[in-house]
């Protein structure tokens, strides 16, 4: 059906998107790669020049770099664990027949629409504040000592906040998948005497596996670049206790102007993301073929 003319028209219609994205992705990334092999400090340009891999070597020798990579992985891993398991349980619960299901759905999905700085500041001040927060009120009510969340357990506090933001997303996706499960299949399994547990393991879970994969991958993409939540709560501290890779890159680049090191960090972030992307593309790509 497609003639030569419509083909070239199609190419012409696609061009703006492709060119814009290409320029936006390749040009800055090339800059970053270039900077990552340079000593470059706008405030102190005397020693600027090519330094080979020494910016990357810092990631092995400098504890701040290692810690930031570790923190990134801990944050991504814990939030994934909490949101996927919590999301499955919540989706199963909401899928039950009940009164006011629509409102329950709306309440559960809401945190996802809260912008990151608001989510983080509300948790920091209203919920986790060691003096005025709700957790402190609860602790005092039971005669306990309020916990200084961001001083003592900064990573845990950030994990809780980020998990609160992403649990709704996981729940919504998994619930959507759950509701597309064929009712007849479920009934047939029930008739055959399959209990709740075995129905879940042999019918529901395999049906949801694709949705779970998608949740894992998409959340990983976003969780690898958590930034605002750290900026407004701990600012990466105490020390580097809650600094993740994006936050460290920001600190090095815009606060300390150590552009070479920051760029090396950026490139490592790209490599991390690419490992994830490789699996993500395969999962989404399979969907295109069907």
């Amino acid at each position, binding site marked *: *059906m497609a003639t030569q003319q419509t083909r070239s028209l199609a*190419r012409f219609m696609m061009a*703006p998107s492709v060119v814009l994205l290409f320029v936006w992705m390749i040009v800055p990334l090339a800059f*970053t790669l270039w900077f990552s092999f340079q000593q470059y400090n706008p405030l102190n340009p005397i020693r600027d020049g090519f330094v080979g891999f020494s910016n990357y070597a810092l990631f092995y020798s400098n504890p701040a770099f290692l810690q930031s990579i570790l923190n990134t992985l801990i944050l991504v891993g814990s939030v994934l664990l909490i949101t996927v398991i919590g999301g499955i349980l919540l989706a199963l619960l909401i899928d039950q027949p*009940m009164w006011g299901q629509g409102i*329950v759905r709306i309440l559960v999905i809401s945190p996802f629409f809260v912008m990151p700085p608001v989510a983080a500041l509300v948790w920091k*001040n209203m919920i986790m504040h060691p003096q005025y927060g709700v957790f402190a009120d609860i602790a005092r009510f039971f005669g306990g000592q309020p916990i200084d969340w961001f001083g003592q357990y900064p990573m845990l506090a950030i994990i809780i906040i980020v998990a609160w933001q992403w649990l709704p997303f996981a729940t919504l996706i998994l619930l959507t998948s759950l509701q597309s499960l064929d009712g007849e299949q479920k009934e047939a399994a029930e008739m055959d005497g399959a209990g709740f547990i075995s129905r879940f393991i042999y019918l529901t879970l395999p049906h949801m596996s694709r949705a779970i994969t998608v949740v894992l991958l998409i959340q990983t993409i976003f969780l690898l670049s958590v*930034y605002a939540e750290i900026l*407004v709560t701990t600012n990466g501290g105490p020390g580097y206790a809650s600094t993740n890779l994006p936050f460290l890159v920001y600190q090095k680049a815009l606060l300390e102007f150590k552009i070479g090191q920051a760029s090396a960090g*950026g490139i490592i972030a790209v490599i991390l993301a690419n490992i994830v992307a490789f699996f993500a593309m395969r999962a989404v790509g399979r969907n295109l073929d069907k």
Partner: protein
Amino acid sequence: MARAVSTQHKTIATAAAWIVALLIFFPILYTIITSFKSEQEAIQGFNLFPSGTTESYTAVEAQSGYFKFFLNSVFLSVGSTILALLVAIPAAWSMAFSPGKWTKDILMWMLSTKMMPAVAVLFPIYLIFRDTGLLDSRIGLMVMLMLINLPIVVWMLYTYFREIPGEILEAARMDGASLWNEIVYVLTPMAVPGIASTMLLNIILAWNEAFWTIRLTTTEAAPLTAFISSFSSPQGLFWAKLSAASTLAIAPILIMGWFSQKQLVRGLTFGAVK
């Protein structure tokens, strides 16, 4: 008997679901409640019943000029969305209706750009913005947000356009419709719902974007994300004011979000879960 069990089951499920849902919603609810307290009330321990004062709302506007940030947020999210649609509609259209050998690869490549971490290009972008005078400008940030969300917009539109049956086009052609008539009278009406859904989701994403909006602005172009972040180093009592500012910042998007649950699933999973 079966009926009784099912009612009991339903009651338990209802109670459990409502308790969990209210716990999850609690931080938002408590923020809204606190926004109607005075600063003194806000720090006097747990209290679900505010005095109902609106002084925090007036204070937020009077002391920090809230409305300017709000307008920036509206301008940036709506502007970047319209810009993205203008660029993406032709692309998605051609990919859906006359797919070529490379269509799938181009789509996958677009998706891959979304996976590039923002920090990897932070400094080059910062330099480019600084040297072209785009730092803290609404136009610069609008283009930035457009580029960030462009892959999602193309993908979402593509999945919607792909569902428009090609036979309808052929039928229209058989009846002698010109290409222009085909687009205006046949395709556009069928594409509008998909475009509207895409727009809705993209406005939400742009409104809540909290990396570039904070780093590339200072005062003039700063939207609500940057404004709220300035509360991270507070002076004096500010719980009620923070709550009022937060409530205002999330309310419009929360309401839009409630109406876009389906589109959200589809858009954020790139069509993999519907």
